[in-house]
């Protein structure tokens, strides 16, 4: 490999600093023994983490967020399986149009989705709750699930299904003995991505949540109180760690899926 030119290297370093410096500030101030977010650092402490531990409202928000994220991940992955299978294996009228339409929320501004859903839900007379947040999150997570699962289903050689039928297995048996095992890594990857997106999502949750706020909405509320800022930093730090772990796990399963389906190892994916 050729070494990069000095100017490109400088650009890359500046870019990375710009990208990650704010995130690096999280742990620094999360462990800083001062209520004011400013340098110089005054000392090391775990106090902010203890504070998180003792805040009941935070626990409730975390519980809400986790429930919403898990249900969202499951629903959008199931919907994704159907859509991905259909788009990878069957031909039907206006297939491109329909598939394209499902993918639109991927690029739609979330604030538009949030406002539109709010109007519709209020018109329908539905009370805002965790379930309305789940509806919104499924809407934005499903396209991601489809994108991940479609590649898993597309990599599946159709002659494997035919071989299973040929060997006397039924359609349903073939799904469970051949198709499902081969797309399982894709399914896990889809669950993790949808979970992560839902957990971090703020705008839609802000519009559609009732009295049970989600974690991002709770954090936003805390920003009004400067004294709580360091504990928000501590919380942010924990969430970054969690998100990173989820992403790495999802990537591991995505690569395993590629290896199983025999796809070339040239596709190195996200990392």
């Amino acid at each position, binding site marked *: 490999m050729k070494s990069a030119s000095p100017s490109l290297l400088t650009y890359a370093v500046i870019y990375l600093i710009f990208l990650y410096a704010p995130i690096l500030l999280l742990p620094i101030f999360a462990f800083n023994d001062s209520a004011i977010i400013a340098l110089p650092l005054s000392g090391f402490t775990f106090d902010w983490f203890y504070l998180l531990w003792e805040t009941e409202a935070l626990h409730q928000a975390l519980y809400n967020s986790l429930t919403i994220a898990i249900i969202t991940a499951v629903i959008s992955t199931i919907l994704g399986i159907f859509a991905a299978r259909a788009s990878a294996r069957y031909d039907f009228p206006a297939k491109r149009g329909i598939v394209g339409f499902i993918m639109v929320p991927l690029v739609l501004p979330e604030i538009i989705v949030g406002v539109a859903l709010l109007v519709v839900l209020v018109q329908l007379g539905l009370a805002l709750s965790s379930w309305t947040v789940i509806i919104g999150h499924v809407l934005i997570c499903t396209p991601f699930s489809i994108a991940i699962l479609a590649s898993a289903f597309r990599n599946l*050689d159709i*002659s*494997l299904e*035919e071989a*299973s039928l040929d*060997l006397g*297995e039924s359609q349903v048996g073939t799904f469970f003995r051949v198709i499902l095992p081969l797309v399982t890594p894709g399914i896990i990857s889809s669950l993790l991505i949808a979970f992560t997106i839902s957990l971090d999502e703020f705008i839609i949750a802000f519009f559609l949540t009732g009295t049970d706020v989600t974690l991002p909405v709770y954090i936003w509320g805390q920003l009004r109180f400067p004294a709580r800022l360091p504990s928000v930093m501590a919380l942010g730090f924990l969430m970054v760690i969690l998100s990173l772990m989820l992403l790495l796990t999802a990537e591991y399963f995505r690569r395993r899926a590629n290896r199983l*389906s*025999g796809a070339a190892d040239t596709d190195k994916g996200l990392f």
Partner: protein
Amino acid sequence: MPSDTTSRDTLISIRNVEKHFGKVTALNGVSVDIREGEFFSLLGPSGCGKTTLLRMISGFEMPSAGDIHIGGEDMSEVPPNLRPTNMVFQSYAIFPHLTVAENVGYGLKKQRLAKAELAARVDEALALVDLDGYGTREPHALSGGQRQRVALARALIMKPKVLLLDEPLSALDKKLREAMQSELRHLQRTVGITFVLVTHDQEEALTMSDRIAVMFDGKISQLDTPEGIYKKPADQRVASFIGVMNFLPAQVTSASDRTLGIDVAALGKLSCPQDDRFAKGDKLKVGIRPEMLTIVYDGEKAEKNSVPAKVADIAYYGDMTYYDVVFGDGSHSASVSMRNTAGRPILPIGTMTRIRWGPESIVLLED
């Protein structure tokens, strides 16, 4: 030599089968009977409909018209998983998430065999294809030839009435392909199951089959033994698809009850047995194989059925030499193959010589 299967019963009966994909016609009225225990090949160029026909026998495609019976049973309502056929796929379709033994035993799961019996059957199938002891291997660690054997074992363990093979050797290199040809032939005789092979490789079809159906444009052009197809091709397309064939224009000069007199370009007049495809004055093509033409070497006397020719090009194959020769007046040429036996020199380009042919080795083909 191919075994004699002419006296056996019909196993697969295909009647007036048609298949249309939208406006494209893949099969256009195919009827053929495949006999019990024979090695049957569907041979043709890509797009001739041979794979479609195979997929209809296996149940992955349904005929647009006509019907298929296997063992006397109408197959039109029978899905692939309930048919007495098993297939070796072109890509082998080995399940990547299962071991070799799990792949081979896949189809037996429905039979709910005891663990020991299942293992015994799997071992037996693996032994049949010379893969003893490979049961615990993962498919990705196998070579192409080994994957092919796993696919064979996985199909044969089902004890099907018919084994369908979709271009099974096309992914292998030449040496391995030739070895597998004779192995497949041997295997077919051992198990006695009807094999239906789809291939575009004429050599593969000739060496392995009891009978061959040569297909063009969704129809069977000729159905015969390998020898029949090679020696008596039905038309010019079959003749040029199977091996090498020289074509020379000719015209019928006389037709009686018994004989047909024809005038062949470059070779001259000759007399053939009567053939009701042709009448006096008809134009036709005469086909003659390169090995049926002989170069008359110096010292050998010029004789009947020989004409002067000039060597235009040479291709040396070690055991054989192929000559391109131009006949007397320079308007027609032919390919001649000569075995390189001891004491026979390779003639240089430009040599004037004579070409001898036998009237019995000539095939008359409609123009």
